[in-house]
């Protein structure tokens, strides 16, 4: 035959590569705790054939999907099961308005901006019992949830006041997409990264304009807003990568995954030209060490036992290797790599009253494994996993960058890198 055909099967999200082996159903954390959800196979490739026939076959229970992507990771056939489900939700949700609660939860940056201004009040207020009850009943945000504390000073403010001016002195330059969590709730992680990178000779820059990556907006069906913000971020990323020739580092696995993969696949905002230059800081640092471009020197007396939890989106990105191997460089660190389980929070999902019990049931296995590991802290690359694990196990949870920064002998490292 003249032209080659049937060389491969191409279908949206590879849905017809599904061999109906049902393996995805063994890893779905939602189907494991509720019979209301039809499971990834039924919600994904099976349902898709019917939805192609008639969109009326959409099942509203698809809203229960966490978008944790564990089904995609388990699939031996490369089917983007979660993407199929998200696209179906997106199509079904077109033109519908999100609730006030969902809008509030989704707008992590808006909430953060207000909360930062009144941080002491906000932290107290959001933590007060009456407030929680109002949120529980009126807003349907579960009363068990503690909102992550808001920092008094935004990371951006700190950076401008205390770090920005001496960054230019370094021979190498990177950009940093800090995300909402670092900006509003936990600037220390950003500060740790700046400390770490400065110690090995890298100056840090913020993006021209950074908006919330929109992962929560997508999860809550606010696609239009997510798309707007994605366009702003895409422009900033392009400026940093294509004009300033800088790698853009991140410290949140979910933001990273969103910028690199969900922007094009979910929102139709193409970031393919800059995708390879957006990466988690752990990957960047690991690579510099691996290529012998930098040296890390660690504190002599450092000794900790930490468990590493692979966040679902981290596993979907396939980058846990870098965080793990980077931490394994720390001589005094006894690192226990936990079996990958979903913690159940999945961004804003677990905050919703209707999901709370499911969310905790989903995380139960992970919490038990953490308890069994007998560690003093947990490391993970995802901030929402951090909230969930801290709330559910009482153990402190740190980003691997903070673990590294904590173990680092900064002065010795600076010297070792000729600074």
């Amino acid at each position, binding site marked *: 035959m003249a032209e080659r055909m049937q060389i491969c099967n191409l279908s949206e999200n590879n849905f017809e590569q599904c061999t109906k082996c049902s393996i995805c159903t063994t890893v779905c954390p939602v189907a494991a705790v509720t019979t209301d959800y039809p499971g990834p196979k039924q919600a994904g490739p099976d349902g898709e*054939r019917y939805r192609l026939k008639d969109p009326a076959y959409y099942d509203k229970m698809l809203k229960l999907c966490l978008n944790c992507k564990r089904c995609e990771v388990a699939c031996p056939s490369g089917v983007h099961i979660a993407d199929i489900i998200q696209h179906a939700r997106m199509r079904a949700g077109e033109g519908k308005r999100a609730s006030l609660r969902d809008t509030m939860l989704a707008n992590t940056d808006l909430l953060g901006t207000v909360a930062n201004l009144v941080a002491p009040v906000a932290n107290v207020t959001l933590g007060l019992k009456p407030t929680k009850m109002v949120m529980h009943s009126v807003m349907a945000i579960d009363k068990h949830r503690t909102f992550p504390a808001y920092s008094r000073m935004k990371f951006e403010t700190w950076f401008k006041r205390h770090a920005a001016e001496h960054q230019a002195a370094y021979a190498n330059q990177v950009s940093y997409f800090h995300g909402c969590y670092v900006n509003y709730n936990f600037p220390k992680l950003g500060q740790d990264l700046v400390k770490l990178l400065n110690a090995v000779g890298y100056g840090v820059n913020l993006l021209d304009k950074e908006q919330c990556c929109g992962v929560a907006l997508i999860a809550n069906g606010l696609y239009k807003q997510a798309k707007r913000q994605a366009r702003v971020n895409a422009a900033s990323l392009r400026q940093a990568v294509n004009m300033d020739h800088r790698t853009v580092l991140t410290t949140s696995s979910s933001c990273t995954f969103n910028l690199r993969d969900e922007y094009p696949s979910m929102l139709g905002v193409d970031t393919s030209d800059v995708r390879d230059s957006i990466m988690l800081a752990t990957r960047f640092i690991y690579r510099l060490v691996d290529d012998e471009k930098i040296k890390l020197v660690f504190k002599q007396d450092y000794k900790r036992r930490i468990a590493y939890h692979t966040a679902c989106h981290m596993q979907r990105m396939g980058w846990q290797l870098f965080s793990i191997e980077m931490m394994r460089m720390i001589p005094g660190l006894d690192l226990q790599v936990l079996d990958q389980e979903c913690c159940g929070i999945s961004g804003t999902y677990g905050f919703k009253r209707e999901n709370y019990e499911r969310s905790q049931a989903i995380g139960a296995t992970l919490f038990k494994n953490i308890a069994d590991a007998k560690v003093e802290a947990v490391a993970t690359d995802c901030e929402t996993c951090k909230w969930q694990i801290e709330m559910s196990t009482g153990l402190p949870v740190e980003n691997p960058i903070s673990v590294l920064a904590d173990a680092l002998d900064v002065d010795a490292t600076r010297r070792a890198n000729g600074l």
Partner: protein
Amino acid sequence: MAKSKSVCNFAPKLIESIGFATLKTSFMVTDNIYKNEYDVIIIGGGATGAGTARDCALRGLKVLLVERNDYSTGATGRNHGLMHSGARYAVTDGESASECISENMILRRIARHCVEETDGLFITLPEDDLGYQRTFVDACERAGIRADIIDPEEARRIEPAVNPELIGAVRVPDASIDPFRLTVANLLDARLHGADTLNYHEVEGMIVNQNRIEGVKLLNKLTGEHVEVRGRVVVNACGIWGQRIAEMAGAKISMFPARGALLIFGHRVNNMVINRCRKPANADILVPDDTVCVIGTTSDRIPIETVDDMRVTREEVDVLLKEGVKIAPSLATTRIIRAYAGVRPLVASDDDPSGRSISRGIVCLDHAKRDGLEGFITITGGKMMTYRLMGEIATNAVCAKLGNTAPCVTATQPLPGSEDDTLDQRDMSKRYSFGQRAAIGRHGSLAARIEKENDIDNALVCECEGVTVGEIKYAVHQLHVHNLVNLRRRTRVGMGTCQGKLCSCRAASLMGEFRHDVKGAQADLAAFLDERWKGMRPVAWGDTLREAQLTAAIYEGLCGLDQVVDRTGKEDVQ
């Protein structure tokens, strides 16, 4: 073993979990049927036979329909599933075109649950002559078929799967139709009006008294029993196999079997029927059918002796693909789940038995006039989609012989499943589960008969196609299901992309319980998998081969089905 008294030689066992005991069964005792004398005996359980049975029954005749295999196993179940607007025939055969458009409009009313109103496109590609479009549209107008020339840009918009290089497009009222459902609905209505229907009853000969046919000699293939049933008129509605039946009666018809092969793709790439706007040729129609789409056909004249060999060849697959991608380029990268072939019953004109002059229209032969043989009528030629008209013509001929003057009402009276137009599928998502919705899509208002009161009834057996335990119970009890292949035709079990990977075992277990026959269920399971493989084999590469290997790993490797059922080297017995 004593000959069984019933068609279904099994009794419902009280299995609580499956709930069969609670179901009202509709077993028919064949003894009564065998003793009956009928006004008319119809041979052939395809759409034409079923449509004739329905028409005769509605006109008050006492009807028996017999089918040697399962219903709709011949050309009825082996075509595109296209409800022609007639446009395809407009240029070459105006009469057929007029018949088509008239029947098309009727079926939209009476068979709503079997029809999907997709509309169709006739596209002109750069390699085609755009001048033909004018000829085509004019011919459509003459035949009474609405044909709107639309801009290629508009065609790309309304049907994104179409070859973007098209230079012309005409929109016509083509549609998609499910022939299995259509046939079953006709049979159900016939039975509702007193007809008896028997599948797996093969005609072995005619009861001939001098120059009059007085009935048929039958073999009950399920029990091995030989019986004779008497009827005042016998109608031969056997499609291509009608030549053989006519010979049994002592009449000669020259049939010219035209074989056509088709490919089924794993999902819909198109939502409108797409045809080529040129003289009919190979693989020039792509039809969206339920959850899949079908490209076809090839067209080859074959010897009549080979009409039972329906295996698709490599060459046929190649032709279908090569031409198919011209209609919708994405077919080149879409998974093919199976290949199948059917035989069109073309009839030579009586004045030219050589076959050079072949009628493509409906042929109704009264053998009394033609061959001096009383009580025997042959209805053949035509198309699946003109089945109703063929039924009407045949019934008119029967009634003329019997002096029945009742008018034909099949053009206006909806089929069972289509009588309720309040069942709006668009608004189903709130009230029904996936399986229930899929069942409504298949059975229309008859889906109300499917039990859904308990969780087990609602449990999915086939996850690809959304077939529940309740639907299987309904099919087994009310739709003449004897084996898994029958079940598939009634419900779509095993028709999804995996071709029955896990569902066939679940369904076989249920059937085994139901029939009280575990060994039989295992043999049936093996036969079913074999039948699925028959269609997969010609396209066994890529994901289809992976699917086959996984199926083998499960049924042979894990389960050892090959150890209990040795079918090595045996041909398909379905």
